[in-house]
């Protein structure tokens, strides 16, 4: 299988805290890869490592065969034009209208005449259903609309890969359904490679071709949705079924309960 991203034996720390200990994975080209895992397990960190906003302390992060951490500043910026990221908050520029937000990458990186920019932006807004909201400011948009506007901005330069950081978080069922449909359709129609980081197991499993489950600083399971359902790992099954207790304990690590309660009176 042709892989667009390869991560090989990566170690990463935040301060004293270890996030990854020997993580290896691949992102197949042209597919939707879902990355699942409990909060704080480093799913967003994975996207930032691929975009080289963070650098691994050990190991390799390869995008289209290039080691991201070895690229010069200018080469890194050139490579980033081939990828795109949809942030959890949308990250629209608050001082610009929706139209200007979507036009921004075109104005920065191309010398297209204004009439072509107008056409391309309208086409991208139409594809996310927001052509009618072109003149609105980001503060006037609902959460779901803001994410769709950000998605239009993400695809305006026709990238090879889009990374979605928690695209469904905090969305109502209708907005969530729209986003699921958009991610799936855009991947097929534009021939993209998509990485979807999320907690929303059912939504991700419904569109992903390949799934990766992260926990305990490493990969605990990967494969197709069917393969993952049949995975024997208790940790994977706890996450997929949403069980409140299991290998990921309900209680955060603490000294014995009796010591804590009675100790105060001793």
């Amino acid at each position, binding site marked *: 299988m042709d892989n667009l991203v390869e991560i090989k034996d990566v170690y990463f720390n935040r301060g004293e805290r270890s996030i990854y200990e020997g993580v290896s994975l691949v992102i197949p080209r042209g597919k939707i890869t879902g990355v699942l895992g409990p909060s704080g397990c480093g799913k967003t960190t994975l996207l*930032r490592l691929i*975009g080289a*906003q963070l650098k691994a302390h050990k190991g390799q992060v390869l995008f289209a065969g290039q080691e991201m951490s070895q690229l010069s500043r200018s080469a890194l*910026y*050139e490579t*980033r*034009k081939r*990828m*795109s*990221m949809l*942030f*959890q*908050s949308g*990250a*629209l*520029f*608050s001082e610009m209208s929706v139209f200007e937000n979507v036009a*921004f*990458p075109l104005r*920065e*990186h191309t010398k297209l005449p204004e009439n072509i920019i107008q056409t391309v932006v309208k086409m991208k807004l139409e594809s996310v259903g927001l052509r009618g909201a072109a003149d609105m400011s980001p503060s006037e948009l609902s959460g779901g609309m803001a994410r769709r506007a950000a998605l239009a*901005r993400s695809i305006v330069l026709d990238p090879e890969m889009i990374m979605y950081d928690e695209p469904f978080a905090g969305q109502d069922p209708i907005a969530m359904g729209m986003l699921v449909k958009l991610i799936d359709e855009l991947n097929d129609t534009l021939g993209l490679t998509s990485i979807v980081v999320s907690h929303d197991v059912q939504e991700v499993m419904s569109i992903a071709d390949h799934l990766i489950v992260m926990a305990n600083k490493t990969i605990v399971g990967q494969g197709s949705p069917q393969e993952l359902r049949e995975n024997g790992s208790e940790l994977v099954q706890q996450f997929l079924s949403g069980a409140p207790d299991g290998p990921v304990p309900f209680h955060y690590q603490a000294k014995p309960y009796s010591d804590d309660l009675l100790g105060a009176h001793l």
Partner: protein
Amino acid sequence: MSAFHVLGRNVLNTIQGVGEATVMLAQALIGKPQPRKMFPLLMRQLYVVGVQSMLIILISGLFIGMVLGLQGYTILVDFGAEQALGPMVALSLLRELGPVVTALLFAGRAGSALTAEIGLMRATEQLSSLEMMAVDPLRRVIAPRFWAGVISMPLLALMFNAVGIYGGFIVGVEWLGVDDGAFWSVMQSSVDWQDDIMNGVIKSLVFAIVVTWVALFKGYTATPTSPGISAATTQTVVYSSLAVLGLDFVLTAIMFG
């Protein structure tokens, strides 16, 4: 941990902070000039940072000039030297109060706003988003704001001086009866273009660099949370005010000592 360790750690942290701030500014300012992209951004920031600070600067300048006129008159009149009111007001403003008070007001009004704005851009992932769109946030966000601060503060200080002198004139001449001709002619003969006016402008330029630099660095490195942005905004005002007052002494010693 001993006091010695704490002191050592603070010194190292300060040196590291200065180093990081220098690298940030160098990366923002050094590179291929892009006038077509920079000019509209600079104009917008000149409006936000400079024009929108004008009102507070002009009103403060007027009142400080009026106070100088009143205080100066009550002292000078005892010695029969009220004709010296003009140079007293002008020199106080041009050499010290103009650059220093403008810088302090600028730190409070524009510096804190710059820090909060950039801190919020970090908190809402707008800076990360720029990076991922292959747009350098240092060139796009930091550079135009820096130049806007450096250009606007000396101009604001000159406006402060002009309005302040007029405030001194209103109180001294119009209200307290100092001779009109003496006020202006003695001022004109006492104020030196290079020593007084240009040195004041140089001071203001130095303060502009320091205040804007501190504000941008504190915003860019703010912890992206509500308390983090609040702390960064406070630090901008405190650090830049202290830096202005300390540097003022150094510059005064060099220029007039």
